[in-house]
């Protein structure tokens, strides 16, 4: 096995990186692939709670890089999917505890053991960002259809090009088709026009995301919700499948016919 390393970045905070990392990992693992997620957000660990694995942490990323445990010991196994693992971020230590070369070394070791490595990065463009992209084969840039998130995504895309980590692919999260329709939200076409990179996913605004996070049960575990389906589609595109983008508009029309909106 030689894993592919996929890192999710954004520039602006809170656009949905951790949610998406968890769900892409779950979606890949539910297709029978062996997946390890790495929480690169040192000091602000969150991938564990989104995945519902917070009670099982013994060792973390810094324990591995500083040699206090073996890699295997820090890989928490998900009970729902046999081949899904998490390496949690350290919670209290300083952010310089991990370096880009530590991440490259860690991923080189992991690569032999799994099919996919999904890395969640912190917001911003500092050390944590550099760590998270150091070993990446593919970088996914996440944005929301609003001004500051798109602007920050553009900065990050430029940095990725400069670091020769491009071309990145874009995920647009929290799209509200009704707002787009009435002209109060940037459309998918607008965002692609502005950022001029390849699109790999569109995730609608969906309250099921919050419900799922409350329970620690990522949506992609069952793809019945729109967002859950969107996460599964991203996973399939990563695997090389051609998956058409969901027609969010017509679903919205359907909702309105039902009088829900």
């Amino acid at each position: 096995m030689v894993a592919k390393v996929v890192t999710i970045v954004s520039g602006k905070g809170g656009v949905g990186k951790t949610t998406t990392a968890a769900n892409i990992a779950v979606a890949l693992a539910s297709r029978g692939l062996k997946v390890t997620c790495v929480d690169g957000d040192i000091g602000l660990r969150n991938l564990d709670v989104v995945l519902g694995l917070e009670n099982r942490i013994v060792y973390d990323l810094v324990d591995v890089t500083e040699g206090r445990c073996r890699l295997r010991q820090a890989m928490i196994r998900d009970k729902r999917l046999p081949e899904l693992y998490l390496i949690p971020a350290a919670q209290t230590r300083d952010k310089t505890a991990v370096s880009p070369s530590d991440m490259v070394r860690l991923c080189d070791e992991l690569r032999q053991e799994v099919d996919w490595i999904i890395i969640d990065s912190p917001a911003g463009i500092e050390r944590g960002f550099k760590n998270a992209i150091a070993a990446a084969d593919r970088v996914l840039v996440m944005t929301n259809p609003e001004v500051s998130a798109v602007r920050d995504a553009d900065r990050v895309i430029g940095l990725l090009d400069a670091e020769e980590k491009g071309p990145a692919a874009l995920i647009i999260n929290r799209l509200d088709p009704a707002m787009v329709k009435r002209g109060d939200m940037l459309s998918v076409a607008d965002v692609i026009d502005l950022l001029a990179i390849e699109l790999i996913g569109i995730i609608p605004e969906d309250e099921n995301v919050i419900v799922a996070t409350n329970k620690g049960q990522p949506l992609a575990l069952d793809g019945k919700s729109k967002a859950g389906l969107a996460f599964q589609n991203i996973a399939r595109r990563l695997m090389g499948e051609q998956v058409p983008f969901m027609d969010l508009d017509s679903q919205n029309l359907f909702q309105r016919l039902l009088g829900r909106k």
Partner: protein
Amino acid sequence: MAFLFGRRKSANSAKERLQLVLIHDRTDLSPVELESLKDDLIQTISRHIDIDPMAVTIRVAQDGRSQRLVADIPLRSVGRRRGHETGRAAG
């Protein structure tokens, strides 16, 4: 009233504002710096050839993720030697 004349859509404002902001972010060139570059360009070119300073335009054109500085510098007619002529410089 507003709906009769069509309310200006906020998404359009967002897109237009972003277009300008991204050019600045990507090139490190502010609108003010672009104006001063234009003045320098006019001065330099005027030393060699007769141009109409008022007609000069300069802008950053987008091609995917790359930018090009495009200047349009109409030349003044040189009387009877040649007719009216327009020169374009892109770089």
